[in-house]
C-alpha cells in the first residue's frame, strides 16, 4: 500500500505479529520477519496453535520458514485485542488429546456415513472421478 494502491504487499506487515493458516490446516502465530516475492515467510517466535472446540493449546516452535504456496491466509494480530478471546487456553498435552479424540470421532462418523450410503446403493463421488462441469 505504501507504494501502489491496489497491490497487496507484505512489506508493511514485517515485524508484526501474524496468524498464518497453512494449507495443511495448521495455525501458526509468530512475528513476520522476512518475506520474498513468493510470499515465503520467515516467522519468529512461532507458536503452533491447535484449536479444538473452545479450547486451544500453544506449542512453541521457534523459527519457521514457510514456503509461500502453502499459505492459505495470514493476518495481523492486534496485540491489544489478542487477550480478550472467549477461547480457553489449555496445556499442550490436553489439547493434543482433545485433537486426537476429535479426529477419531470424525473418522467414525465418516465411516458410518459411507456405510449408510453403501447400504442404500449410493456412493459418495470422489472429486477426482468427476468429469462434469
Amino acid at each position: 500500500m505504501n507504494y501502489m494502491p491496489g497491490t497487496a504487499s507484505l512489506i508493511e506487515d514485517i515485524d508484526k505479529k501474524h496468524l498464518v493458516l497453512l494449507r495443511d490446516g495448521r495455525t501458526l502465530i509468530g512475528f513476520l520477519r522476512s518475506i520474498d516475492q513468493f510470499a515465503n515467510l520467515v516467522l519468529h517466535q512461532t507458536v503452533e496453535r491447535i484449536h479444538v472446540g473452545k479450547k486451544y493449546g500453544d506449542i512453541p516452535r521457534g523459527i519457521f520458514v514457510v514456503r509461500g504456496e502453502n499459505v492459505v491466509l495470514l493476518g495481523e494480530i492486534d496485540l491489544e485485542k489478542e487477550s480478550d478471546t472467549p477461547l480457553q487456553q489449555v496445556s499442550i498435552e490436553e489439547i493434543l488429546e482433545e485433537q486426537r479424540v476429535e479426529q477419531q470421532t470424525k473418522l467414525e462418523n465418516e465411516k458410518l456415513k459411507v456405510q449408510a450410503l453403501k447400504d442404500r446403493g449410493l456412493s459418495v463421488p470422489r472429486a477426482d472421478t468427476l468429469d462434469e462441469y
Partner: protein
Amino acid sequence: MFRYESLEDCPLDEDEDAFQGLGEEDEEIDQFNEDTFGSGAVDDDWQEAHERLAELEEKLPAAVNEQTGNGERDEMDLLGDHEENLAERLSKMVIENELEDPAIMRAVQTRPVLQPQPGSLNSSIWDGSEVLRRIRGPLLAQEMPTVSVLEYALPQKPPQGPEDDRDLSERALPRRSTSPIIGSPPVRAVPIGTPPKQMAVPSFNQQILCPKPVHVRPPMPPRYPAPYGERMSPNQLCNVPLQPGRMSPSQFARVPGFVGSPLAAMNPKLLQGRVGQMLPPAPGFRAFFSAPPPATPPPPQQHPPGPGPLVQNLRSQAPMFRADTTHLHPQHRRLLHQRQQQNRNQHRNLNGAGDRGSHRSSHQDHLRKDPYANLMLQREKDWVAKIQMMQLQSTDPYLDDFYYQNYFEKLEKLSAAEELQGDGPKKERTKLITPQVAKLEHAYKPVQFEGSLGKLTVSSVNNPRKMIDAVVTSRSEDDETKEKQVRDKRRKTLVIIEKTYSLLLDVEDYERRYLLSLEEERPALMDERKHKICSMYDNLRGKLPGQERPSDDLFVQIMCIRKGKRMVARILPFLSTEQAADILMTTARNLPFLIKKDAQDEVLPCLLSPFSLLLYHLPSVTVTSLLQQLMNLPQSAAAPAPSNPHLTAVLQNKFGLSLLLVVLSRGEDLQSSDPATESTENNQWMQVMFMATRELLRIPQAALAKPISIPTNLVSLFSRYVDRQKLNLLETKLQLVQGIR
C-alpha cells in the same frame, strides 16, 4: 613434456638413475612457472587488464559515494587490529575502478596499499578483487551499472518512514552468515514509487527476465557484506544513521549510554557479518551522521547527551526528500504524504512529553523494544517491492489489468461528477500511471557455456524446449462408448462456446479501440468487427449455411450450458435483426427442452431482456409465427389440440411465461398501432390469438409460473378475442389485473 638439450642427455640405460635424471630435468623445466604461479599470474593478469579496459567505458560517477565510503573506511581502522585483517580482506573485494579513482586514493591514506599476496595458491572467498574478477559473473557486471545509476539518481535519500522509530533499538547487527546470495537485493536509492529510469528498467527486465550469462561461473561472494570499501549508496548511507545495524540483545541494554560507550563495548564478533552496516565508534559516529550534506565531519567535541537529541539532530539535518510522486494516483499520494507526516510527528514526540496514547504509538513502542526488528533491511524490502512493481509494468494496462483500470476510472468519474456538483476545491486529476514499458523486442540469446564442446542448449522460461513428443491420436468413433461420445460432444460444445466468447469480448471492446484509433484505421476496425460478428453467428448456428437450418442441434447444445445462455444474451444486441430473429425462433421452438435443461441453472431469464428489445423491431409476421412456435399451436384453427405439453411447459416456466406475455404484448402493439396492416397478417394474427386464448383458458391456474414482468396492454389484447366472462377468467389466471398481484 621433457625437454632434452640433446639426445645425448637422455638417460637410456640406467634405471635407477633415470628418475634422478628426470628429476634433474624437472628442475630445468620449472613446473611452477612464472606464468601460472609467479609474477606473471599476479602482476600480469591479462584478464584483469582486459576487464579494466572494458570497464573504463562503464565508469560511473562514483565520487559522491566513494568519498563518504572512504570516510567510513577511516572509522573502520579504529576498530582494532582484530578487525583490520578482515576489513582489509573485505575491502579487497572492492571493484577495481574504485581503487584507481584518484578521489578514493586521496582519501584512503591509512589504508595499506592493497596488493594481492604473491604466490598465494589457495584462493579463498575473501581474496582480492583480482580473483573476484575472474569469477564474477556477467550478471553482476550487468547489474552494477544499473544499480549505481539508481543509487546516484537521488543524491539525498529520504529517511525511511517506518524505520525512523526503530533507530534507537537497532545498533549492531546480529551475526549473519555471509553465504553467497545470488540475486540478493541490490542497493536501491530511488524509492520504489518513482518510475524507473528508462535505462534501468530494460536492463532489469533483461536481467531478470532474460538472463544472459555468457559464462557459467561459481557464485559470487556476497555483495552486501559490502564493507566501506564498496560504494556506499546514499540509501545505505542514510540507513546507517537511521538504522545503524541491529542490536544484539546484550547490546541492547546499553542503548542509553551508547554514544559515550567505549570502543571495547562493541563486540567485534558481531561485526563480522555486516561490516558495512556496522556502526562506527564514537568519534567517527559524528562524521557519519552529518555525512549527508556536509563534506567535512563536524568536530568530535560535539557530543549530544543521548541518542534522543542525536536523532533530532539527524532529523534536522536530513531533509525530507519528496520523491517524485506525480505519477501516482492522488489518493495514493495523499496517503503517502500522510504517512510521512505521521512519522515525522511521531519522532517529534519521540523524546518529548507527547503521549499520544494511540494504538499506533504503542505499536511503535513495541517495535522499539523489539530487538529482532528490522532483520529485513530496507533495501531488501525495496527489492521485494521492486519485483512487485516490475510485475505491474505492462505495455497494455487495459489488457493486463482490466478490472483495476476500470475500477479506478469509475472512481475518477465519480469524483469528477462530485466535483462538478459540489464545486469544491479542485482535486488532483492525475490519472494513475503504472510504469509503462515500451515493448522491448530483444532477441533472446540462450545461455552458452564456456568451455563446452558444441552448443548445449538450456531450456528456460524464455527459451522453452519441447521435452515430450506427444502425438495426438484422434479416436475413431466405433471404439468409444456412448458415454464418451456424449462427453466429447459436450466438450466440443464447450470449446465452441469459449471461442465465441473470445470473439464476443473482442467485439465488445471495439468501441474503446475505435476511440483510441486513428482515422485511417477505423474502416479496418469496422470490417474486423463485422467479420467477427458473422463468425459468432456461424458458431452459434452451425457452419452449414443452407437455406434452412438443417438442425438446431448445435444451438440447443450451446443453450444447454449456462455460459452459453449468458453468451447468447450478450451476443444478441450485435446481431442483425434477421439473425437475431432466427435465434429467437430457434429458442422458441426448442423451449421446453431448454426449460428442462435449465432447471438447475435458472439462467434463461437473462435472455428475456435482449429478446424483448429484439421484439420491438420485429414485423408482425414474425411475431405471429413466433407466437405459434412458442405455443406450439397447430397450423389450422379447426383441429382441436388434444393437450399441449409444449405450452404447459412454457407456461410453467418463468422465462417461458414472460416471453409469451411479451410476445403477446408486442403483437397487440402492432395491431393497435398500425391500422393499415395487411389483412392477411391481420387474419393470421387473429387466428393465432384465438387459439392462444383457447389454450390459455384450458391451463389450470396453479401450474402457472410467475412472470418477470407483465405488460400492461394484455387486457385490451384479450378483450378483443374473448367475451367478458372469459376475460375475467384470463385476468385472474394470468394475474393481469394489478390488484390481484
